[in-house]
């Protein structure tokens, strides 16, 4: 379908408070004005926008069905094809439907969205607005379930962590195709606040997935994201972080597990806008079969952002001859008092290490598994709690078993 047709669908959805409807209608207009990204768009050089639009997606109508069988009992918030099934707040925090509390939407990612960002808002069925007050420490698990039927599950969230507050946000994406997941988070991390954001994309085949996360970090604040991609066909997650005030810190970790003809794209932009901020990126991709992993990591250091310390590493392990990896580690620096580094490496398993293990008696498969799991371990170990680490470790092992 064309931009116009999606915009028409959006205009047909009129439930919700006027403020919410107005926001969405504005986004529908913006979608028509911008269109979807074209083949010559540098930001989409290695991922075809058409791969996300391979069906005529339509928003889900009516109330969400009960999906107890699939819903994670641990989940505080459950969305089904973008519709809010339930939402409970952690003690001391507030969690509202975004329809009721949409003030602040677009403040971080831009009031005038384009392309898939505009599509998300235009067709968003719901989402949550979360506030963690000063000094409160909380955990929130949000589950997105796709039920197939060519439905477009678009959700929009807004997170505010007040000064000194702490939030562990776990977003988990599950379900089956054909469906399209479009999930956008805007988060404001105030001074001395902390947001740890674990984003597990785990839909089955036939669910193209597009996510955008926009975060502003205040003085002395911290944002740590761990993004896991793979298994769903074509996936793309964009992380846009601005370090707004002195002493802000961001660390982004990513793990891609792709096989078959899957395609996963991490697209990162970190802006150092203030002095004395630090950023770290560690992205790893495991590619089997005929899959493709794409990484773009752009670090922008504004004039005057003295004392910036930015480091980025991307490594891709190609487990078959037909796998493809693309990397664009980029630095744009307009200030001399900086220390910025990036490194990218693409290759197969180290033959020497493989030989060493086999010489000590490991079978080839066991040696390969050991080295591959070790490759993923840096990202797994960065997760904030043991249960999350165990789950991801199990996912890597399971993926490896299926891929080899």
């Amino acid at each position, binding site marked *: 379908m064309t931009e116009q047709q999606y915009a028409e669908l959006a205009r047909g959805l009129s439930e919700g408070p006027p403020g919410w409807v107005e926001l969405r209608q504005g986004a529908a207009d913006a979608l028509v004005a911008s269109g979807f990204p074209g083949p010559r768009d540098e930001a989409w050089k290695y991922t075809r926008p058409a791969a996300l639009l391979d069906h005529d997606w339509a928003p889900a109508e009516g109330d969400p069905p009960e999906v107890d069988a699939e819903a994670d009992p641990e989940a505080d918030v459950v969305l089904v094809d973008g519709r809010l099934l339930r939402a409970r707040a952690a003690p001391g925090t507030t969690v509202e439907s975004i329809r009721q509390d949409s003030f602040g939407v677009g403040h971080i990612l831009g009031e005038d969205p384009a392309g898939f960002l505009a599509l998300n808002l235009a067709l968003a069925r719901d989402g949550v607005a979360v506030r963690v007050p000063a000094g409160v420490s909380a955990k929130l698990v949000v589950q997105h379930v796709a039920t197939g039927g060519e439905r477009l599950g678009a959700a929009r969230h807004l997170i505010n962590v007040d000064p000194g507050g702490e939030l562990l946000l776990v977003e988990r994406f599950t379900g089956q195709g054909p469906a399209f997941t479009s999930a956008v988070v805007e988060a404001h991390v105030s001074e001395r606040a902390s947001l740890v954001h674990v984003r597990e994309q785990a839909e089955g085949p036939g669910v193209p997935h597009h996510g955008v996360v926009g975060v502003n970090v205040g003085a002395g604040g911290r944002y740590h994201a761990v993004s896991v991609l793979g298994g769903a066909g074509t996936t793309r997650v964009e992380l846009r972080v601005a370090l707004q005030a002195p002493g802000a810190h961001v660390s982004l970790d990513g793990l891609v597990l792709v096989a078959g003809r899957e395609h996963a794209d991490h697209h990162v932009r970190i802006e150092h806008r203030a002095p004395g901020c630090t950023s770290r990126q560690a992205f790893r991709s495991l590619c089997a079969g005929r899959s493709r992993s794409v990484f773009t990591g752009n670090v922008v250091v504004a004039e005057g952002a*003295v004392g910036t310390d930015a480091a980025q590493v991307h490594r891709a392990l190609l487990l078959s001859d037909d796998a*493809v990896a693309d990397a664009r580690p980029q*630095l*744009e620096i307009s200030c*001399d008092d900086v220390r910025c580094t*990036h490194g*990218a490496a693409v290759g197969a398993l180290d033959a020497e290490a493989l030989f060493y293990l086999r010489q000590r008696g490991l079978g080839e498969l066991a040696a390969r598994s050991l080295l591959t799991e070790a490759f993923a371990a840096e990202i797994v170990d960065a997760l904030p709690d043991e249960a999350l680490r165990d789950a991801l470790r199990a996912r890597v092992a399971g993926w490896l078993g299926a891929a080899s």
Partner: protein
Amino acid sequence: MGEEAQPARTSAEEMVAERGEYRYGFSTPIEADRLPPGLDEEVVRFISAKKGEPGWLLDWRLAAFRAWQQMEEPTWPHFTYGPIDYQGVSYYAAPKQKPQSLDEVDPEILEMFEKLGIPLQEREALAGVEPTIAVDAVLDSVSVKTTFRAKLAELGILFMSFGEAVREHPELVRKYLGSVVPHTDNYFAALNAAVFSDGSFVYVPKGVRCPMELSTYFRINEANTGQFERTLIIVEDGAYVSYLEGCTAPMRKDNQLHAAVVELVAHADATIKYSTVQNWFPGDKEGRGGVYNFVTKRGKCLGARSRISWTQVETGSAITWKYPSCILQGDDSVGEFYSVALTNNRQLADTGTKMIHLGRNTRSTIVSKGISAGRGQQTYRGLVQINKKAVGARNYTRCDSLLIGGACGAHTLPYVDVRNGSATVEHEASASRIGEDQLFYLRQRGLSEEDAVSMIVNGFCREVFKELPMEFAVEARRLLEVSLEGAVG
């Protein structure tokens, strides 16, 4: 330029006084034969006719011109410059007298190249000393003198101006011209293909190791001209050549356009080393004047085990746009790119390389050192592409930026595209300023701040300088020092 307020008219002399450090800023009053400004098919035909070219070459030029008319001038994310008036440039300027021997070379020209330190007399040969360097001197659009042609010819090596090659070896030119950089490759390459007036041609036959450095020295002298030279180097099986290129231009308050094309072809087991020291006039401190250096350089490692190595030191030009690249087609072929680029005042440079791995076990190395000072802006842009059939291909890239002062910029935009699981690609990059502790250490030992900076910058570039032939390395170090003047403190 553009919609900016026009800067107050400044005489060339004032500019010399302001920027006394540009040593090559003189211009020489030489009687020149030149076309009036403007570009249309007639100009293309005129150039071709002037040079007595065969029909196929005129057709090739015209095809390029028509393609160029349909193309859009590229833009760059970190650069803006006022529109270039392609109709305001003269596309042909040549010294009036075309010399047959050195005695006939205009003494003004001889003196000018003497001033530049380029010997056009085969002096060493007269003294009975083995020559180490042969020179093709190109003034504005035309080759004025090629030294040691006879000596090289004894070995079967052809070293001559492009125009002579078209007349004397049309079969070679026709076979290879455009085989690496097609006439429709990009906007500036198409423009060059349409209007190129001269350049250098080198052919090294099978198994011959060229005994001296071959060198082209480019000089833009005439005001308001573009320079569009074309270099073609073909090295047959098992042969070797080292080629050097130097460039200067007078200081002029208007921008001059330099859009050159270089094509290299290396057959099996052949090696081509191509070194450039580019010192076109960079403009004054405020960014007035200077050369727009939009150059397409590409080499094809056609045969197995062939090797192409680019080394460049870019200190001049107002704007540089240049990506010397290698197509690694032969199995086990090797591509290398070693670069030092320095931007000071308001200079802009967007440079890097493309390594296209096609053959099995092909290897490439990229070492790029960028220095930004003043309000200079610099971008490293590179592509490492490992294609499906490039089994066992390897690349190593090291890309470092040094920033001097808070108003400059350094940008690193590499593309890594790996389509074969047996390949190994490593990319490392860093950006930082000169360490305060390093500066203090050197000053504590008695070095002035300027000497300390220059020493650290030279150390930063050493990996690249060691790839240059000796005389060039000395020149490069000196240029770096001169170009950094005023960047410190």
